[in-house]
Each structure stands twice: as structure tokens, then as C-alpha cells.
């Protein structure tokens, strides 16, 4: 039972998409979107990562358990990042860097 064999064409199109998205990331960085620069960069990066996971890593054709494992990992990463922010976003002041000592 060999895993799903994807057509070469699919791989090349995914590669093309990733290259275009990289160029888009670099281009978007030079456009002043203020606060949204970070958001745009992250959305593109997440999309690129999901392309790689879905097609290159065959998760599209994998069992539900594999999909669940991937989802669990990302969920706990989000917990780590978001709950650390709970503390840092609600701090009244940024720490006085040491030169203020």
C-alpha cells in the first residue's frame, strides 16, 4: 500500500505558487500598511506553510489521525503565543530598559 502518488504537475504548480507568494511577501513589506504589515506577512506565511503541509507533506491524503495531530500541534502553539500575550498586552508599561536605571 504505497502512499498517494501526486502528479509532478501538482508539485511544480505548488512550487510556483510558493515562489510567487515569497515575492509577494517581499513586495508587501515595502508597501507602508502601518499596523497591517505584520498581519499581511503572517497571513502569506501561514498560507505558504499550509500549502507545503497539505501537498508536499501529503497530509491531504493522510488519515484523519494525522490531520488531527497537525491540528493539535498548531493549537497548542497558538495557546503558548496567545496566553503569553495576555500578560504582556495588559501590562501598564513596557519595562524601563536598563539605561534608565
Amino acid at each position, binding site marked *: 500500500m504505497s502512499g498517494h502518488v501526486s502528479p509532478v504537475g501538482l508539485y511544480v504548480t505548488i512550487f510556483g505558487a510558493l515562489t510567487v507568494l515569497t515575492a509577494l511577501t517581499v513586495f508587501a513589506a515595502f508597501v507602508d500598511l502601518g*499596523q497591517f504589515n*505584520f498581519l499581511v506577512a503572517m497571513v502569506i506565511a501561514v498560507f505558504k506553510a499550509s500549502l507545503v503541509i497539505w501537498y508536499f507533506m501529503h497530509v491531504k491524503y493522510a488519515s484523519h489521525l494525522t490531520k488531527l495531530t497537525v491540528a493539535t500541534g498548531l493549537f497548542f502553539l497558538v495557546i503558548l503565543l496567545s496566553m503569553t500575550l495576555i500578560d*504582556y*498586552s*495588559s*501590562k*501598564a*508599561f*513596557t*519595562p*524601563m*530598559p*536598563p*539605561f*534608565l*536605571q
Partner: protein
Amino acid sequence: MQIFGIPIFPDQASTFARDVDVLYFFILAVCALFATGVAITVIYFGIRYHKTHDGEIGARIEGSLPLELLWSVIPTIIAMVMFGWGATVFYHLRRPPDEAMHIYAVGKQWMWKFQHLEGQREINELHIPAGQPIKVTISSEDVLHSLYFPAFRTKMDAIPGRYTELWFEAQRPGSYHIFCAEYCGTNHSGMIGTVTVLEPAQYQAWLQGGGLEGTLAQRGAKLFNDLACSTCHVDTGQGRGPSLKGIIGTTVDLQSGDTVTVDEAYLRESILNSQAKVVKGFQPLMPTFQGLISEENLVALIEHVKSMSPNASATAAPPTPAPAGGKK
């Protein structure tokens, strides 16, 4: 409170010590109830359903949903009560009243340095008046420490690079422990002291006796002249630097277009790093005093500037929740 000479309960020497203890007894009662309930049930079942003959098998009971819900929902409700009560006590614990008397505490490896506004400096000793809310602003010079007054039921970590604070209002005169509660190295257990709560009158007497070179603000004024600040910061405003009269609490606009409220943190930053936030309309000529001023002198200078404002007790860097200062 003691039994056979063994102390089993700490003194209640601050106003909210009683609130914390009442909360403690409430949770203790609830837990004792649950623990003894489970213990008695378990022991009773152990005796009542003891195995009589080899090969005896217990009754076939799979479980019961209502019972499960019962002992999930009830503990959740009790937990929420505990959380709510604890949160209110905590909120009260962490919001110093405005009229609190201000004391600076600096943790340094294995000693506590206390600095009164009136100029007294004490190491591992603290004299405070009873019946007066006191706010202690804490910082550390090297590693993490934690200023802990068990009799007042309050504690706060001393973090290098940042101000943290705690407050209490001592009720009963007497001497109580000061501990360092965050591990800080070899002599962590030696970093202890005693806080002596005096009657207000006795406190004033102690102040007079102990006052070395006058109040902090007076010492600040002397420094203000010695360091030639007064040459630029002239009260009339004609000097090369902005007038500092009554500046505390006002908002000034900066060269870079932003505005900033003048508080301790801004004063401190401008003294140590004068080019950081230059006020609009002035040249950034002021030299930086980074490394030239000791911690105590810096505090004295800030107190002096604050004493030039009509409302004497200025707001220190407010640690209460407000959106983060850094831009993103």
C-alpha cells in the same frame, strides 16, 4: 496565636490581613468538609463492604450521570465562589490608595534598602507609622528578590529593570518580619529584617531623630543646584531648558510630535537620557547623566521636581492595567 508555645497562626498586623484570613478559613472549611467527607465514606465503605469470601465480586454498577453531574457542577460553583472572593481581595491588595505614604525599597543581593521621602535610609530595617497606608515601590539591583511581609499578608517580587509595588496599612504597633521570598543566591535566608510599626507620634519622633540631611526633596534641591540644572531650568521659563515649576502631571509635546505626561518615569528617563524625549521648542543640549547619578540622588532630584508642583504627591508610574506603552 500559639498552642503550647508553638506559633500556629501569624499576627494580623495590616488592614487586609483580616480579609485574607477570613478567605483562608472559608476555603479551609470547605476543603476540610470535602476531605473528611471522602475519608469517612471511604473508610465506611472499606469496613461495610469488606470481602467476606474468596471469589466474591462487587455489585455491577456502571455509573450514574446525575451523580457525575452533581459532583462536577457543585465543585465548579464552589470554585467560582473561591475565585471571585480571592479576586476581589487581590484587587484590593493591588490597588494602593492615592494618599498612601511613599517608600522606596531596593533589593540588592542579600539586603533590603529602604528609602523614606524624608531622607531616612534604612537597611533591613523599616520604621513606619501605624494607621497610615504605605505604598512601597520596589526594584532590584541584581537578581530577582521578593519583598514579603507575612504579618501584613503581602508580597511582591523585586525585578531588576522594572518598578513593582505593594501597599499595606499597618494597624497594630509592634515588630514583624521582613523576608526575601524569591531565591536570590547564597544568603537568600539572610536577606531578612524587621518592620517596626510605631504610633504616628513615635514615628515623627523617630523621623526627627533619624533625619540626617533633611528631607529627600531638600537634598534634591541641593543637588539641583550642585549639578547646575538650575542654570537651564529657570523657573521663569527663559532658560535654555523648560521650566520645571508645576510641571508634574501636565502633558508636554515633544520634538517628535508625540505628547507625554510628565511623571516619575518620564523625569527619570529625561535625566538619565536627555535626548530620548526632548520637549518641543528646545534644543537637545542637556547632557545625559547616565552613570553619573546614584540611585538615591536620582530619587532625591525627582522628589525635588515633584515638590515644585502644587499637588505634592505626584502619580508614580501607574502599574494599573492600561494599554502597553510600546508602539507596534
